[in-house]
């Protein structure tokens, strides 16, 4: 069993990824795919006159300020355009994909952060209407039900809070949670860079291998958004996932190359 995370940033080639998923699935590889959609969400939010606002938590993490209006735009892009665009690509390649958000059947469930403290335009602020949280539980029964009946689950944020509210969660850490919950051997994280770069954006500074023990130090190299990806990787490894690979989502056979060790391998 492997879990593949498809990033939402520019440049990622969904057709090449769909080709690779189809090849692997037909070869009998059991798989769950999780995807993002941040770049597209920013575009649609701008076009709808509700430009994205990002807030930085006191300890330096950036996240999308997800008020109610933003949540709806987020759902339109993640659950509508991107998810169904990927399902269509897979269905056309003979893979019986089923697209689901974390809300559906509470596949992703966790606490909603009622209140968060952030830095906004230099001011330290309390944000109350932010629909954000994290994934603590994964509905493995539903995923197994689908997998055992020949379906390929294609998952996306948002998640469900314990009260059943839609909450924005980080896609990478949701993927890590799925890998943990399913006891997957490998977690492949595809983005628009070849892997973890010592000095971003210089692609030749790719870090080919990081032993599990040195992951925390890798965090120093990780640029802002990459930090969360590395945190997700660390959590997955701690929970028994054998290997995490950060790989390039812009090339041919991106998953097979990652499985063969191309990118940043952490084990």
């Amino acid at each position, binding site marked *: 069993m492997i879990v593949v995370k498809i990033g939402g940033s520019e440049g990622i080639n969904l057709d090449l990824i769909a080709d690779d998923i189809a090849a692997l699935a037909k070869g009998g590889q059991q798989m769950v795919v999780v995807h993002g959609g941040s770049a597209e969400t920013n575009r649609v939010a701008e076009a709808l006159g509700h430009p994205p606002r990002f807030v930085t*938590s*006191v*300890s330096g*993490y950036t*996240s999308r300020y997800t008020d109610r209006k933003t949540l709806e735009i987020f759902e339109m892009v993640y659950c509508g355009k991107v998810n169904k665009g990927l399902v269509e690509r897979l269905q056309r390649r003979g893979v019986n994909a089923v697209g689901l958000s974390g809300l559906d059947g509470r596949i992703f469930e966790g*606490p909603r*952060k009622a*209140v*968060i*403290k952030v830095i906004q335009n230099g*001011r*330290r*602020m*309390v*944000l*109350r209407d932010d629909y*954000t*949280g*994290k994934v603590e539980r994964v509905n493995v029964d539903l995923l197994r039900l689908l997998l055992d009946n020949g379906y390929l689950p294609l998952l996306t944020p948002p998640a469900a809070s314990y009260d059943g509210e839609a909450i*924005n*969660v*980080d896609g990478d*850490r949701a993927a890590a949670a799925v890998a943990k919950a399913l006891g997957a051997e490998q977690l492949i994280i595809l983005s628009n860079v070849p892997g973890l770069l010592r000095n971003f954006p210089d692609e030749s500074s790719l870090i080919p291998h990081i032993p599990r023990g040195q992951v925390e130090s890798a965090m120093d190299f990780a640029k802002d958004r990459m*930090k*969360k990806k590395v*945190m997700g990787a660390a959590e997955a490894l701690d929970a028994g996932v054998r290997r995490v690979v950060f790989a390039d989502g812009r090339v041919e056979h991106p998953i097979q190359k990652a499985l063969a060790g191309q990118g940043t391998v952490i084990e």
Partner: protein
Amino acid sequence: MPEVLVAECPECGAEIEVTDVIEGEIIECPDCGVELEVRSLNPFVLELAPQEEEDWGE
């Protein structure tokens, strides 16, 4: 002269004067240092800032 907003610190009762703040902003009481949240500007209301759960970087 920017408008000066005045309120009592709910923790230690000290008088706090601020100018450039907006709703939802966090400030510290100059006397006891407790974190306060600007709940409203007009009337100017300060309350103890909520305790943040551990930061997940979400």
